[in-house]
């Protein structure tokens, strides 16, 4: 049990509010055929997460520590600034998701958003490490909402099964771009930093590597299973009835006439939880990275007074995010696209660092990557960069 946490929590946090939005929109556009992306995404996620975690277990260092020690201060400042910027987009996505989720349930934004954010802050700063971890593990239960929504949507399960394993008969340019977006929302730059810091913070040692790897596989598998249900729920209702949606809250509403109130409520509840997890974990990832890059004490294991900068950094980002979503006329749909796109072009940079460190024999000893792992790692780096670039240019020119 001692190893449970990093793999599962990071994997589920990858299905944050932005993830729910991207998956919903993708399923509403393409229906069942988009399900074919699930298996490749699971593989890419579990391979990248496993590598990140293995580096942390073997070296006892986070990605930030390693970049700083091997590439110096200037590169560190650059990478950190990029990470901050990209993560900030993701934070806005999640707080925006929270906002939409609250609106779905007709909860007053100006009362509940501060309450949710306030309790989040108190919880992260006051509760012990073990409690924070347990709480996040508990939240994952809410993802079952997607499973129930999917069942209520009465999909054609045979069709679902076939779509997962059989490639779609024609693959359009837009389909390809959407697939990359879905991949980019699940395999994230911050996720790579986060799992690394988390494993380090948990003080796992090499003899636990086997269990740690297993836990990561389980996490990747489960989180993508829920993504699958999410897409099934949307594909069976919204797509089948040719409704246009632009976000997750839209999807929750669009499901209602076809799958009933309960399915719609559960879908909305899932969005709320996803937003909450994302709004907590992404700023944490930045705070961890900051303390690694610049050497200030930072860990969930240290009390608030000792780690003021760490927690301060956390709060600062969340508040900035709240301010950003409160600006009238801010389009969350645009932000989602922008954040996914930034993440898409930043991720290959992170993959480059992972590749460097995991193949460094001085650092990793006998735990360096195998040839196959390297091939997969490099091909996802390349695929994501091409996808992000082509997709980004495509959407910029309104294609």
């Amino acid at each position, binding site marked *: 049990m*001692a190893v449970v946490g990093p793999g599962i929590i990071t994997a589920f946090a990858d299905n944050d509010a932005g993830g729910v939005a991207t998956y919903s929109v993708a399923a509403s556009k393409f229906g069942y055929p988009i399900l074919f992306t699930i298996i490749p995404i699971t593989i890419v996620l579990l391979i990248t997460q496993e590598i990140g975690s293995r580096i942390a277990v*073997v*070296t*006892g*260092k986070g990605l930030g*520590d390693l970049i*700083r*020690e091997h590439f*110096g*201060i*200037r590169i560190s*400042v650059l990478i950190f600034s990029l990470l901050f910027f990209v993560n900030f987009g993701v934070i806005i996505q999640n707080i925006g998701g929270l906002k939409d989720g609250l609106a779905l349930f007709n909860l007053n934004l100006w009362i509940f958003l501060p309450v949710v954010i306030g309790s989040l802050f108190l919880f992260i700063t006051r509760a*012990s490490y073990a409690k924070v971890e347990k709480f996040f593990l508990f939240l994952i239960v809410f993802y079952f909402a997607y499973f129930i929504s999917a069942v209520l949507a009465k999909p054609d399960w045979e069709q679902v099964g076939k779509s997962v394993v059989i490639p779609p008969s024609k693959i359009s340019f837009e389909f390809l771009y959407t697939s990359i977006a879905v991949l980019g929302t699940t395999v994230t730059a911050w996720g790579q930093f986060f799992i690394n810091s988390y494993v380090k913070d948990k*003080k*796992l*040692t*090499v*003899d*636990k590597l086997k269990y740690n790897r297993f836990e990561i596989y389980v996490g990747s598998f489960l989180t993508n299973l829920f993504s699958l249900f999410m897409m099934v729920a949307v594909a069976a209702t919204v797509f089948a009835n040719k409704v246009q949606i632009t976000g997750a809250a839209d999807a929750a509403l669009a499901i209602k006439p076809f799958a009933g109130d309960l399915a719609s409520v559960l879908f909305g509840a899932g969005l709320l939880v996803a937003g909450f997890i994302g709004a907590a974990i992404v700023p944490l990832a930045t705070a961890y990275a900051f303390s690694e890059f*610049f*050497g*200030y*004490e930072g860990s969930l294991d240290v009390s608030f007074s000792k780690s003021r900068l760490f927690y301060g950094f956390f709060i600062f980002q969340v508040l900035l995010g709240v301010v950003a979503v409160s600006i009238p006329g801010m389009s969350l749909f645009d932000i989602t696209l922008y954040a996914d796109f930034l993440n898409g072009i930043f991720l290959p940079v992170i993959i480059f660092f992972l590749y460097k460190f995991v193949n460094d024999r001085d650092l990793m000893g006998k735990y360096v990557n195998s040839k196959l792992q390297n091939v997969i790692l490099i091909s996802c780096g390349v695929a994501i960069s091409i996808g992000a670039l082509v997709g980004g240019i495509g959407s910029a020119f309104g294609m």
Partner: protein
Amino acid sequence: MFYFSELVNRVVVNDNNKPLGKLKDLLFLAEEIPTITKLYVRKNKKKSFAIPIKDIKEINGRIVVNRDFVEKDIAEREFSLAKNLLNRQIIDVKGGKVVRVNDIAIQDKEEGAEYYIAGVDVGFRAILRWFKLEKPTIPLYKLLNLYSRPNFLSWGDIEPLELARGTVQLKKGVADLERMRPEDLADYLEKTNIRNMNKIISGLDEEYAANVIEDLNVNYQTALFKRFQPEQASKLIEALEPDEAVDILLTLPREKRIEILDSLGARKRNELKDLIKYSRTSVGKLINSEFISINSEITASEALSIVREKLPEHPFASYIYVMNNENLLVGVFPLSNLLLHEGDEPVFKFMEQDVIVVHLTTPKTIALKRMLKYRLYALPVIVDSKRMIGVVTFDDMMEEIEEKL
């Protein structure tokens, strides 16, 4: 004094003004006075070389070297400023925390004849310096009243967490670390990896090392003992508190545990084996087998001299346990009572005969309640009829509770 950030990547020329390459690194001897020995210069992608410091003619402003210098390789005892110190984590021994080296200050002595590392800069201004923003931001600093706070640590006050280049260790040694509280050092060591942790711990005095190990996270304890040679492991196990030793032994694989136990002395081995056996019971894991016991028929002054002799080994003993001739527990009194009684008074006259005890089967919560009810810091653990095998202390109980919180 100047900073490494100001030197690095500058062009090195000889006294004919012919460029030799860019300065990439400085090599130094990690001793009491960390003298800079060589400049490391990169000519192009393929060629790099080291220039001995004695061939340097100028370093501030331009870097000029003698035209007839001899290229050298890195010597075995030399460390690299850029690879072994800069950007690395160090322990700020005085301030008691782990920090990252942002820049390194170099001091010149006797008009540039010799250079050595004065210390490291761990502050934010050093980060600005790398971007050539330190000087432009000085007015801002002054405005915010932050200017007078440099974050500079002198060489004597730091200890690199990563001590080795290949097999060479910093000569500075780890003795400085023993100035710290072992609990604090344990916290800092948890910030590095097992390899470095192992190196540092192996350099410490055994008693001190044992205290540090007691405070490490259990995963690290296990990992360390898996790496130790049996000889080193058994020495440390001897130095640890028996209950801690048992905790660690129990996390190790069976073969490793037996190997360590076998290399211990017979007395210690049996003691630990008993404790391991008891550890399956409810209070078992908390039992500490070290306590001070005396015979009931001796006098207060005799008792006092026994205590004087034994106390250094049991510094935390708060009670003296009294045994009869069959070595069964018949009484107890707090250590401080010895001060109250006449020297010739026999112990059985003033000891408490109604001893509050726990058995191996006593649940932990009951044991804790007894401690609180009777206000006792430790309870004796007895087996069979009144044979005492150890004590459960309030401290260990608290640790147990802390883990649950």
